[in-house]
Structures are given as structure tokens and as C-alpha cells.
């Protein structure tokens, strides 16, 4: 029975996983490398041209947008986080999760909605004219399609990043910290500024940098509002002038901005570890706000939910049901396209994430951990950068292939990679690997190595351990990862716009196109569908937060 042939000398029965992980990481890092390489190798002529013409505009607009949104998300996110985590007032617990709702609202969709509401032909100005009797140009009204408008739109949907991070930090500060400061003679208000705020600072900065990454990645809003930033510049250079080199150069500069943000985020996260020390007893809600203060707190926390989600979602729903063209087969086909693409992308991304996570679990060497870390780097990159980074190598590969086939058989073939959904799936894998890795790794981390050993010592082969222990325990995390990637792909606009095959539309692209044609009402059904699906990860997030506390 115990044949001496069954020699197991190797410590690593799944050695191929290590090479698979390194291969996947190289593939996913390729687009970034391509963009970086273009910064240094691009022709000088393009560079001078950019510098002389548009670059100053792009830089100043992008910076102004970032500063404006930073102020906006801080002014909304931090106070509501503190109010809902430390204070007790009417509606506090409902608002605790409702404040996350704007996460489901993509910036470009909220921009279309408010434009439809507030522009000259919209119901608000129409009502003003009807009530006052004034005509066009005889009164002042806020121009939503401006840099200021973009700042407000982006702030309304991006504050949840700051809210989430700082709320977690405030909750982790033990009640004792506050009590100690009271015994040392600080009032609640001065304790907030002297203690709670400085302690939460790393978390706030981490949340802020995440929001800033989204600002840099945004294309739909700034394009629609006519604000010339890097992303619109990349699109214009690429589509308008067909200038791939120029687009890559711009993408490279944008990449520098992103790098600064990544390092800021990493740095503040490292500090976060040191700051979160002491007793981990979550603070009880103990600051009771009664009377007008409670009402004021409630109203203040309701405003972001109202303007960031309820109002625009309600308007979209109204338009979809009462004013838009009735649902057609075209729309159903569009939805099917989107769902099918998103589902396919989710399957691929999560499968790759599983390979990477298992490689790291079984071979925790430096080469594998570096690979896993670099595979996730795309989360910080705007879709436009990734799209450029994907199209350059794929187009090169396609031309090689076309020439090869022509030489060998004389046949002419089309674009195999860059003209099909392969390019899209590749870009999604780069962009969304990090979220999927995060979910899978946190699930896998809960399966302790000793559980593997317990299974083995109870007579299970490694594959049986996988089936009877890992599979049931990992199911939930894998499902979560699938859902999050699914929804993110559904919402993604710029990369899809650049890379989609000819005549292949998704909900996001359709909404963008209709809005660009000023058919805002007709864009509503596609928009509301994206928002509704976007609610799924918000619900998941909320569930995991309430489980945590």
C-alpha cells in the first residue's frame, strides 16, 4: 500500500501557480509600462506642441477641479462622519447608511440630471420665468455647465469616500479618549478640534486621495460641462486628431499626478496603523443633541443624501417612466450587452484574482508578493490612461498578426485584439483587479493555514481540502468580488468609449451619447439602470460595516 514510489520531495505542490501569478502581473502591468515608456520616448515635436497650446489649460483646470472638490468633500464628509459616529440625534442611524447612497451615482449621470433640471430649458428656470415674467438674459442664474458646476457635481458623489474613512476612524477612537479630554478640561467642541480631528487625520487624507483619484479619472462630467482637463484632452488628441503619441504623452503627465496621490494614500495608510492604537472598544454614541441642535444636525446630514442621491435618482425615475421613449428592443439589447460584458469581465477578473491570491498563499515569496501588488496598481489609474496603454500594444500585435496571415495565406483579416471585446476585457482586468483581489484575499485570509493542516491530518488530499474547506468558506467573498467588478464595469465610461468594438454599445456609452446630443430625458432609462445596479455594492458595503461594529 505504501509504495515507495510516492515520493513527495517538493515543498510546493502547485509550483505552476507562482509562474502564473508572475505572468498575470506582467500582463496587467503592461499598459502602465507602455504609458510610462511613451513619456520618455515620445517625439519632441508633439511635446512642444502640447506645451505651447493646451497643456497649461489642462493643468490649471485639473488642479482647480481637484482643489474645489477637495474642499467640497471635506466640508461634507468630515462633519457628517463625526455627527453620525459620535452624536445622537433623530435619524442618526438611518443617515449612517443613507449617506453612502451617492456612491451608487456615477458623476456623469448626476451631471446630466442636474443639467436637465437647471439649464435654460429645465423646469427650474422655466418656473422662474413663469413666475417673474422675465425673459432670456434678463435674470442671473447659476451656470451649471462650468468648472464650478463640475466641482459641485463631483463633490456630491465623491464625499462618501471621506465620510467612510473618517467615520471608521471616529468609531475606532475609544469613548475613553473623549472622556479623558473632558476630565482635562476640554469642551466637546475643543475636544473635536484638538483630539478627534488630528487622530482621524490619516484616515481623512486616505479618503481624500481616493476621491482625488476619482476626480482625475472622471471624463463624462468634465467633457459634458466643457471643462478642458487631462482626460478630455487625451480623448480629444486621440479621437479628434488620431494622435496616439500625443495622447500617450498626456496620459503620462496625468500618471505623474496619480503617482503623487498613490504615495500620499500609502503614506497616510501607514500612519493609520500607528494612530489606531489603544483600546479598540468602539465608542458609544454619547453626545446627545436635543432640541434645535438635533434638528440642525439631522438637516445637515440629510442635505448630501437629498442632493447627492434622492433628488437626481427621483428625477431620473420620473423621466424614465413618464417622459422618455418607451422601452424598445434596442434598449433591452443594450442592457443585455452591458450585463453580458460586465459578467464576463467579472468572471475573468475574479478568476485571475483567485490565481494570484492562491499563489501568494502557497508561495509567499518576494517575487510573488511583488507580482500581486503590481497586479493591483491599475485601481488608481483613470480609464483613459489604461485604454491608451491597452490599445498601443494590442494594435501593434494586430498589425503583426495581419501581416503574418497575409504573408502566409494571402488572406486579409480584421483586428483580432484591439477591435474586439478582448481589448475591453483586458482594460477592465487592469482597472478592477485591485477590488477583486481585496475581496478574495480578505476571504482567503480567514481560512487559517492550520485549517488546511487539520483537513490534511484528517485524511483529505489537498484537492479535497480545497473542495470541502476552502470552497464553502470562500463562496461569499468570491460572490462579493464578482458583484463589485460587475457593477464597476457597468458604470465605467471612458475606457469603454475608447476601446469598444465598432457599433458595440453599453448602457453607460448610450447614456453618454444621448446626453451629448442633449437628449437628457432619453438618457434617463439607461442612467437609472446603472444607478439601481450601483446600489448593490452600497448595500454590501453597508452590511459589512454593520457586521464589523
Amino acid at each position, binding site marked *: *500500500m*505504501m509504495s*515507495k514510489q*510516492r*515520493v*513527495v*520531495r517538493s*515543498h510546493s505542490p502547485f509550483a505552476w501557480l507562482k509562474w502564473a501569478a508572475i505572468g498575470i502581473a506582467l500582463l496587467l502591468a503592461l499598459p502602465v509600462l507602455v504609458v510610462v515608456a511613451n513619456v520618455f520616448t515620445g517625439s519632441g515635436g508633439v511635446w512642444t506642441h502640447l506645451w505651447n497650446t493646451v497643456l497649461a489649460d489642462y493643468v490649471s483646470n485639473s488642479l482647480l477641479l481637484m482643489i474645489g472638490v477637495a474642499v467640497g468633500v471635506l466640508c461634507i464628509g468630515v462633519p457628517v462622519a463625526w455627527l453620525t459616529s459620535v452624536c445622537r440625534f433623530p435619524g442618526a442611524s438611518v443617515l449612517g447608511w443613507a449617506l453612502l447612497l451617492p456612491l451608487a451615482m456615477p458623476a456623469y449621470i448626476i451631471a446630466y440630471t442636474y443639467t436637465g433640471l437647471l439649464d435654460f430649458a429645465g423646469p427650474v428656470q422655466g418656473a422662474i420665468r413663469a413666475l417673474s415674467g422675465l425673459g432670456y438674459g434678463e435674470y442671473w442664474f447659476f451656470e451649471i455647465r462650468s468648472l464650478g458646476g463640475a466641482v459641485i457635481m463631483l463633490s456630491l458623489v465623491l464625499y462618501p469616500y471621506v465620510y467612510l474613512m473618517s467615520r471608521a476612524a471616529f468609531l475606532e477612537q475609544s469613548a475613553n479618549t473623549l472622556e479623558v479630554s473632558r476630565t482635562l478640561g476640554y469642551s466637546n467642541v475643543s475636544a473635536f478640534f484638538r483630539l478627534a480631528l488630528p487622530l482621524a487625520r490619516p484616515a481623512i487624507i486616505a479618503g481624500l486621495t481616493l476621491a482625488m483619484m476619482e476626480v482625475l479619472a472622471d471624463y463624462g462630467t468634465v467633457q459634458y460641462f466643457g471643462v478642458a482637463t487631462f482626460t478630455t484632452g487625451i480623448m480629444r488628441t486621440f479621437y479628434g486628431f488620431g494622435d496616439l503619441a500625443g495622447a500617450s504623452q498626456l496620459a503620462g503627465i496625468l500618471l505623474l499626478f496619480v503617482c503623487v496621490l498613490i504615495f500620499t494614500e500609502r503614506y497616510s495608510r501607514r500612519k493609520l496603523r500607528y494612530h489606531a492604537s489603544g483600546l479598540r472598544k468602539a465608542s458609544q454614541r454619547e453626545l446627545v443633541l436635543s432640541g434645535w441642535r438635533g434638528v440642525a444636525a439631522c438637516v445637515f446630514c440629510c442635505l448630501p443624501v437629498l442632493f447627492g442621491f434622492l433628488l437626481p435618482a427621483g428625477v431620473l425615475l420620473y423621466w424614465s417612466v413618464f417622459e422618455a421613449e418607451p422601452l424598445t428592443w434596442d434598449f433591452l439589447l443594450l442592457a443585455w450587452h452591458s450585463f453580458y460584458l460586465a459578467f464576463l469581465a467579472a468572471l475573468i477578473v475574479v478568476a485571475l484574482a483567485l490565481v494570484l491570491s492562491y499563489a501568494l498563499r502557497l508561495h509567499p515569496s518576494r517575487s510573488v508578493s511583488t507580482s500581486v501588488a503590481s497586479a493591483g496598481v491599475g485601481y488608481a489609474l483613470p480609464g483613459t490612461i489604461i485604454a491608451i496603454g491597452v490599445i498601443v500594444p494590442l494594435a501593434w500585435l494586430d498589425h503583426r498578426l495581419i501581416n503574418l496571415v497575409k504573408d502566409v495565406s494571402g488572406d486579409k483579416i480584421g483586428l483580432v485584439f484591439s477591435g474586439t471585446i478582448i481589448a475591453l476585457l483586458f482594460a477592465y482586468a487592469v482597472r478592477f483587479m485591485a477590488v477583486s483581489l481585496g475581496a478574495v484575499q480578505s476571504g482567503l485570509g*480567514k481560512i*487559517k493555514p*492550520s*485549517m488546511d*493542516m*487539520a*483537513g*490534511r*491530518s*484528517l*485524511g*483529505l*488530499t489537498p484537492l*479535497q481540502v480545497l473542495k*470541502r*474547506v476552502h470552497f*464553502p*468558506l470562500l463562496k461569499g467573498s468570491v460572490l462579493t468580488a464578482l458583484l463589485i467588478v460587475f457593477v464597476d464595469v457597468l458604470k465605467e465610461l471612458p475606457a469603454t468609449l475608447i476601446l469598444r468594438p465598432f457599433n458595440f454599445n453599453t448602457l453607460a456609452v448610450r447614456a453618454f451619447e444621448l446626453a451629448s446630443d442633449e437628449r437628457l430625458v432619453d438618457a434617463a432609462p439607461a442612467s437609472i439602470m446603472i444607478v439601481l445596479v450601483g446600489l448593490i455594492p452600497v448595500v454590501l458595503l453597508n452590511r459589512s460595516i454593520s457586521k464589523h461594529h
Partner: protein
Amino acid sequence: MSSFSSGKALQELNIRDLSVGYHGQAVVHDVSFDLTAGQIGCLLGPSGCGKSTLLRAIAGFEAVLSGAISLNGEVISSVDYLLPPEQRQIGMVFQDIALFPHLTIADNIAFGLKGMSSRVVSNRVAELLDLIGLVGYEMRYPHSLSGGQQQRVALARAMAPKPKLLLMDEPFSGLDAKLREELVPDIRQILKHEGMSAILVTHDQMEAFAMADTIAVMESGEIHQYGTPYQIYHRPESRFTARFVGQGDFLSAVVCGHDCLDSDLGRIRGVLSDELAIGTQVDLLVRPDDVIHDDASEFKGLVMSKWFRGSHFLYRVKLASGLVVYCFASSHHNHAIGQEIGINIELDHLVVFSK
């Protein structure tokens, strides 16, 4: 191969000249010991001494660099052979308990019972639940149990398939002291009741004394001594064992005959090894209970510190030579710190190490 292996009379573990390590670097060096059927052995040593690595090698999770491990006369690990863990029929209990959170208590215990009728399985589960005192918990999930209950379930899960040998890797270190004191004798009783051979890994000597029939004291990947708890405590064969197990001090002494030593505390009589020549400088091991407070003694020392233990006082006493020793005194002899007291040595046997 059935998961059951009941009815074998002799179940002996032999470890010969075993070296284990990672990346060619040995963590365990040339270790040899045997464990006879039904015995509970213990690997005792400070953290990083290689005891857990040795245990993992026995379980089959580590390949060996040299030497061999055999169970019932069959080689299960050697330089060019490693029987996979799942074929060894060796059970294991882990420090972090490692119950499967998605399975009920009954399903956890039944996890290793394969290829048996459901009646046999449920009988065995019921029997083990009774043994660990958790009848009625069948349908509960691990998270709803206390740490001590979870560790008992982990033990039952490992014992369910009646393994040839049970390994326990610091199974009590995650539990608080009071729980440990209750659980350790319980588990020894359960193992003895099942007649199961077992090896416990721990850094806690009280746990080792309470649990084991034989103890291997390990340091830096080597076994210093392998013997009964009594031998380990009273007849330590190395300075490390003497220091690591129990409290004690080394008293300088000179050999003055085959049964006598001269020391700061006078002439001490007892059996010595014949190899020690007269005049050899040695260190004598004295335990706290070897040094007795005696007001009438001619040997005096200064009280440095003291602990009241209810039934007795434990003093730390500084001798004229500057050496500091522990000293037991009846709890009526309450002396102040800084006071001079008389002490005497009462030794049954001499443990000496040449300098």
C-alpha cells in the same frame, strides 16, 4: 487504507537522527526519541527551539533533511520519502483551534470519518461529545462556543478517526490561566481513557508536568534530555534543563570526596559521580525547597526580597559570597527585608555541573 486503525497492540513512534529545516537550513538537529503505545510525550522548550517544526515533521507537513520517522515499524518520513499527511493517520490539534466555521460541532467531529455508515458516524460523534462533556451541542456552530469548549471539540475532531498518534501544538496557549488549569487534567484523562498515544508541544513546564508521561526538553533544535517529569526536575542533565525547568540557583562548591562538597553553606553530603576528582570546582544546583530557613544555623544571609505564599514564605537571600539563592520558610517566620537570617541546605541528591 481505512481511516480506522483500531486493534493494533503496539503503536510506537521512533525518531532516529532526525534533522528538519527550511531551505537546507536545519532547525532541528539530529534528534532521536521513542514513544511507546498509550504514552503522552511532551516537547518542552522556549519559543524558537524547533519543537513545533519537529511536530510538523511528524505530521508530514515538513520534509526531513536527514534521519527517519517511523510509526509501528513503518518509515513515514525519510530523506527520500514523505508519506502525505492525509495517509499517516496522525491526528493534530492546533494552537488556533482551527475548527471549520461553516460546519456544526457534530459535522466538525465527523469530518475525518469517511467511508462509514451514518449510524457508525453518529455513534462515534455521540461517544466523543459525551467524552468531552458537550452533549447537546451537536447542532451549534463553533463561534457560539467558548475557547475551552472549542478546544475540546478540536480534540474530539482529531481523535474521531482513532489516529495512531495525536499531536497537539500549544493547544492551551490561547486560553486563560484558569481555564487551562481545568482543561489540562481533563484532556489527559480523555487521552488515557481512549488509550491514545500523544505528543504535546508547549513552552509551559506546569502544562508539561500536568499532561506528560515523558518530556523532551529542547533548545536550539536539540533535545537536551528525555525523561519523566520527576527526572527532568530533580535530575537535570544539563545547565539549560536545570535553568529552564523550575526555579533554582547554582552554588559554587569544591569536591572533597566521593560523597562530599564544600560550599559557602558548609559541607554538603550526598552521592557524587566517581568521575569527579577531589578538588574539582563545580556548580551545585539548589532548588528553593533545598534551602531551609533555620534561625540556629551558623550560615547567615541578607533578605533581599520576599513573597508571602500563604503556607510559606519564599525569600531571596544574599550570602556573604555575594551569591543570591531562594529559600523556603514556614509562614510564621516573617522577616523584614534587609534582616539577616540563618539558612541551611538540605539536599537528597546532588546535581552538579563542572565549571
